[in-house]
């Protein structure tokens, strides 16, 4: 059974269950003690000031009755001061709730982002970028909005509920029990819907993630979509997802509205029960009319926030589902052996691959690889497309770990070596150059932070890359655009090469570094590399041989196995695969191919 992307995503990033997510969220929020205290205090002050306001009015009006203008002035001043206090406390309430809400969201986003930097590389071949984006942005936003605007209501609602229950208990114990009779029903009702509500909201979050995933891909591929004239197909696919999302949302809001309506009925029933029970008790002479009347008022005061809280229940569910999804990213399994104990500061002897086997999922990519790369050696890895060249370099860069066999760096197992210190020794030119938005300088500078712009410019000249950049009017100040799309492919590669060389590493791994660079420019680069690479350990992956004379030794890969290895003359002599490839390129030229 083939898994859908949804299912694959689910198996890679978990979604925490409601209660667990809530617990963690509260714990995270409570870390900001000061703001929590300010929030609670300001909500309480507002509530108290609000309780006293009617009293002040009453007293002021009493002044009218006694004909004392002084009392009127005094108590009006009290009233307006209470309003001023509320103004102040509300201001603090807004500030502290925003700090808590947005601070929490920021914190969750930052932690997810951090987590993404440390998940195994294989994660990215399973999970769409759009899914992650949706969790971090959309889901985070729902939570942020809920918290920013609703935390105060939750806090003040709960305070009012507790206060009213206390006052009601003080007024009459029996009637209070009658007033609370509906609460178990409300809770049971709420709990019985919970699973369904949660599923509904999960569906809305998943469908918006699907939309995000779809658009994230399609917008980046817009040129191909246009080139192949498949706009309407693209739109059609999107429409399907958009409709799914609409339906999920409608379904969720239908249930939430039904819930809200039934809660209303429960509220009114609660009031009716109190009136009824009160009337009976009054008839029996168990309570005084005065108490009953004030009780009825407090019952209303009590139900208001209960209703408010239950109306928030839906946005709460929707946010908590989102939070669970964000924690899922934060909790994602991190790269194994990320923090090997051993720090390395240089390569002293060799990198040795011993009986290495590697498979992506369950398709074998490398079989029984034995290879020793000595310090200062320049090695070429050649082979047909799909032979496993890039895979081999991925293992050496510790992007993946072999299933069996071991990689030894100066005799130490790679998995025990601190990844950061190890990667610091290596500069790769990846098969697919990747550029950050920003200028060429900035892109190179990430590899050589302490080099000045002049130095980088000079190095570009030393490596003969300046002739490629000289075509750009702004030279190294040129903005490369998203993924370097404002440049030609060759220019992108040239930047990737410059970046790698500027780092001045001990080990350079170049994966088809010049596949998009013209032979003329390539020749110049090659000449500069000849000097540079002599002092380095170089791994050059290529299936074109224009730079092969850089290397001392050639490894030929075929179907994941090393089939030939030796120096250039040795391999020519052998008349094997390498020789055959070479001949096709330079040998029996003009001969037709089958």
């Amino acid at each position, binding site marked *: 059974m083939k898994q859908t992307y949804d299912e694959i995503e689910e198996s890679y990033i978990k979604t925490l269950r409601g209660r667990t997510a809530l617990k963690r969220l509260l714990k995270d929020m409570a870390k900001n003690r000061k703001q929590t205290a300010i929030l609670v205090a300001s909500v309480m002050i507002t509530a108290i000031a609000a309780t006293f306001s009617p009293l002040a009015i009453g007293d002021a009006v009493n002044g009218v009755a006694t004909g004392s203008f002084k009392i009127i002035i005094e108590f009006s001043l009290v*009233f307006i001061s209470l309003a001023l206090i509320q103004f102040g406390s509300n201001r603090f309430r807004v500030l502290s709730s*925003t700090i808590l809400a947005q601070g929490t969201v920021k914190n969750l*986003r930052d932690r997810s982002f951090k987590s993404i*930097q440390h998940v195994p590389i294989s994660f990215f071949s399973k999970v769409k*970028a759009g899914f992650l984006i949706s969790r971090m942005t959309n889901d985070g936003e729902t939570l942020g909005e809920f918290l920013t605007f609703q935390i105060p209501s939750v806090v003040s609602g709960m305070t009012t509920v507790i206060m009213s229950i206390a006052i009601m208990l003080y007024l009459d114990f029996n009637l209070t029990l009658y007033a609370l009779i509906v609460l178990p029903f409300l809770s049971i009702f709420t709990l019985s819907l919970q699973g369904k509500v949660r599923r509904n909201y999960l569906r809305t979050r998943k469908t918006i993630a699907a939309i995000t995933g779809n*658009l994230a891909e399609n917008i980046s591929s817009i040129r191909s979509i246009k080139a192949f004239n498949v706009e309407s197909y693209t739109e059609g696919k999107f429409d399907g997802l958009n409709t799914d999302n609409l339906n999920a949302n409608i379904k969720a809001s239908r249930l939430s509205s039904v819930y809200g309506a039934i809660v209303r009925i429960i509220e009114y029933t609660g009031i009716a029960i109190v009136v009824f029970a009160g009337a009976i008790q009054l008839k029996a002479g168990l309570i005084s009319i005065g108490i009953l009347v004030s009780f009825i008022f407090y019952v209303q005061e009590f139900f208001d926030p209960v209703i408010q809280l239950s109306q928030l229940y839906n946005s709460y569910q929707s946010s908590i589902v989102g939070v669970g999804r964000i924690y899922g990213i934060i909790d994602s399994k991190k790269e194994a052996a990320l923090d090997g104990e051993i720090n390395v500061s240089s390569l002293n002897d060799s990198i040795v691959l011993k009986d290495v086997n590697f498979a992506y999922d369950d398709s074998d990519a490398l079989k029984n690889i034995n290879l020793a790369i000595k310090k200062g050696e320049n090695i070429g890895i050649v*082979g047909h497309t799909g032979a496993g060249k890039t895979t081999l370099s991925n293992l050496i860069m510790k992007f993946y770990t072999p299933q069996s066999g071991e990689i030894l760096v100066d005799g130490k197992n790679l998995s025990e070596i601190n990844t950061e210190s190890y990667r610091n020794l290596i500069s790769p030119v990846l098969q697919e150059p990747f550029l950050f938005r920003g200028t060429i300088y900035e892109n190179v500078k990430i590899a050589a932070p302490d080099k000045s712009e002049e130095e980088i410019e000079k190095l570009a000249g030393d490596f003969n890359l300046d002739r490629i950049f000289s075509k750009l009017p702004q030279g190294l100040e040129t903005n490369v655009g998203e993924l370097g799309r404002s440049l030609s492919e060759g220019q992108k590669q040239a930047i990737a090469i410059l970046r790698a060389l500027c780092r001045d590493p001990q080990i350079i791994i170049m994966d088809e570094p010049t596949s998009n660079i013209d032979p003329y420019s390539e020749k110049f680069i090659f000449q500069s590399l000849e000097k540079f690479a002599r002092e380095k350990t170089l791994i050059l992956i290529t299936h074109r041989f224009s730079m*092969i004379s850089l290397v001392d030794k050639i490894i030929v890969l075929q179907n994941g196995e090393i089939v030939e290895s030796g120096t250039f003359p040795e391999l020519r002599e052998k008349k094997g695969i390498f020789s055959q490839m070479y001949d096709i390129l330079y040998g029996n030229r003009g001969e037709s191919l089958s």
Partner: protein
Amino acid sequence: MRQNKKNFLKKVKGVFEPLLFSREYLKNKKWIIYLIIAFAILSTATRLLVPIIIGDIINSLESRNFNAIYLEIEYIMLLAVLSAIASFVVNFGAQYTSQIYAYNLRKRVVNSMVKKKTKFFHDKTSGDLLSRTTMDIDASRNFIMNSLSQLIPTMLIIIFAVGYLLYINVVYSLFFLATVPILIYVGVKFQKKQRPHWMKIRDTYGVMTESIQEDITGQRTVRSYLQEEPQIDRFTGITDTYYGEYMNVAHLRGIYNNLMPFIISAAATAVIFYGGYSSIVSKTDVGGLVAAVNIFTMVTFPVSFLGRLIAFSENARAGIGRIKGVLDRDLDEDVLTSGDFPKSNGISIRGVKYKRGAREILKNVDLEIPPESFVCLTGETGSGKSSLVNLIPRLEDPSDGQIFIGGVNVRDIPLSSLRNHIAIVPQEISLLSGSISENIIFGRNGITEEMTRRAAKIARIDDFIESLPEGYSTIIGERGITLSGGQRQRVALARAIASNPRILILDDATSSVDPETELAIFSRIVKSIEGITVVLVSLRYSAMKYASTAYELENGEISELQNVEEISYAMEKDGFKNETDL
């Protein structure tokens, strides 16, 4: 002065701009809105009836008229049902309408996006566009939902309050009316001050999306260059800005939004002053005064809610502003509907100039590509090869000069027909997550399984695909991440070949394929697709020998290369240095 007044009115209207904007996406849904309004009135009425009934109940209790009480309890239960129905209609109606709005708008945004010229995308990142189609829409959806479900009840309560006040005492109501301009002034000020912050919030949200996407795409580079920390710092910087802007809004809300209920309280104090004073003087009863002050306190919450709505509205407007950038029609592709692809597939490029900003990439290109030929275009890195070939299927348009296919100006061929018959394998491969066959078929009608297989065979990727346990249904990761470089290119090649195009443009499409495979692919293409014209962009002279003619781009101009054979030999050998040195 007049001008000021007009501006002022405009600003007040601005709060409701998102609602006006939404009309277009809610066509045919007017009746729901009327229904919501009707039930909102009902819902408010039931709310207002509750205190009246409770008052009656208290009267009955006092007079110990228990029969009346039972009747009134029935009234309460009746109200319960009515209010439940009303609350359902209002809440569901508001959410339903706002979801329909979001659905329709999103559909429209995506529709306009795919209709745009590629030029539109030059200065935009996909992350930013992505946020425009998701959260920016949601910002206005949220406002619409809140307005629909709460604006009407809120306004009703205020209207009711004013009405009741008028009924009690005209002078008291004047006190209330006096607050209205002050409230509006504060509201407008609040709105104006928030504006830039919400715009920044929405833009920052776009930047945030953009950074996550970039970071994920570049993970290998990030890790090899130990950019994890710098990337985290960069991202934290963005979330800091985002947080900071929310705080700025919070500061404004803290002052302006809270000022609104405070103004009402101040007016209430004035009423107590005035009312108390005049009651003492005229010795009238205080009932009216108490009622009036109570009404003032009753409207404080609705008024502060209106203030909050202003915040939602500004968020919505900021989002809509960004969405409008995509809805604008001025960068749409000009789609012709009639006309066919010409019979002959020769291409002539005449006097073509192409500019990027102020930079002239192609100066004056004239090129004749005969029908059914195989030509090669070469030139140094950055010489404009990709730029030139992109002009043929009109992915870009030249700034000057014309391109003809079979004698017909490409501008006179409908875009769909043009692009159906010209297939291009771009240098930057974009595969989508999905199966291999989905990627080859790429949503085009009429591409059968057989054609898919044939295309795979021509692209020499068939053996590989068939070696996979799931064959053509194997799912490849996003951007084809689970394939090797050469495999990706060949899947893209198969995609281009599958539709049997009349013109095939290969923009360095075999750069990651070994030479042996490369030549085999070329020969298969020519042999299997009858009468095809192939424009090959290649840097390798080894590939060039397959072409009948080769052209070189240099300094924005084109020239024919003589004797490819010799050049190729010289160049590559040269690049090679001395074989015997090794």
